[in-house]
């Protein structure tokens, strides 16, 4: 799935990384606990979270992730956006809650090849 499709499915605002929206990603992880995110080394390109602090961006960097989606309209700080931008990570903000955001992505084939 292209990051652009994630942005459309979740009705997001794009806060940085406009130029990377056509990049392909094939898996995601939804969590507010960063240690749980770090527990799965398998390529996970998208982080869906409701947590807002700089460690979210650093976790995504450690995992070589491509995109962070903040749910429940949580707004990252300008410092977080700058850090993500520097590291070529797309930052999206969605009004959906975690459960529905993950459901929408999964139902549309992200991390679920059978339905892709």
């Amino acid at each position, binding site marked *: 799935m292209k990051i652009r499709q994630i942005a459309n499915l979740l009705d997001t605002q794009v806060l940085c990384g406009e130029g990377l929206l056509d990049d392909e990603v094939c898996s995601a992880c939804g969590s*507010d*606990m960063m*240690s749980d995110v770090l*527990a799965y*080394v398998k390529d996970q390109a998208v982080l869906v979270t409701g947590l807002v602090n700089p*460690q979210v961006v*650093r976790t995504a960097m*450690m995992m070589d992730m491509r995109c962070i989606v903040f749910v429940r309209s949580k707004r990252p700080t300008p410092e977080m956006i700058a850090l993500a931008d520097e590291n070529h990570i797309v930052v999206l903000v969605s009004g959906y809650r975690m459960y529905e955001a993950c459901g929408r992505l999964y139902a549309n084939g992200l991390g679920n090849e059978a339905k892709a």
Partner: protein
Amino acid sequence: MAETLRFHYDVDGDNFTSAGAASVEVKRKLRQLGFPAETIRRVSIAMYEGEINMVVHARGGAADVYVEPNCITIILADQGPGIPDIDLAMQEGYSTAPDNIRALGFGAGMGLPNMKRYTDDMKIETELGKGTTVTMKVFV
């Protein structure tokens, strides 16, 4: 790269916001040196979790990374309270982190297990009231 490269970092214990800065720096250096992506990811995640632990539990400490062509060694040393029961601390889900740290997305009891998971060798030396030294190795 004939000789061992050594990188030293002081991990600031008072600043959760900057926790992980040393791991980011190591990741960048390993990339420049041309190590495989998977190796870099394992080293940086293990070190990142360790750095967070030092900030949360031990008011910071020192991180030393030794880079050889076939092995990367990370030594994290602190003067914190020490770990009373290592077996318990190694259990997934066990955490003594305070609630304010949980609110920041850590303290899920996955730090030490993750460090062990991503490294080929991990040794913990700890003394109550004196501090803890964690030595991790990742083979290339």
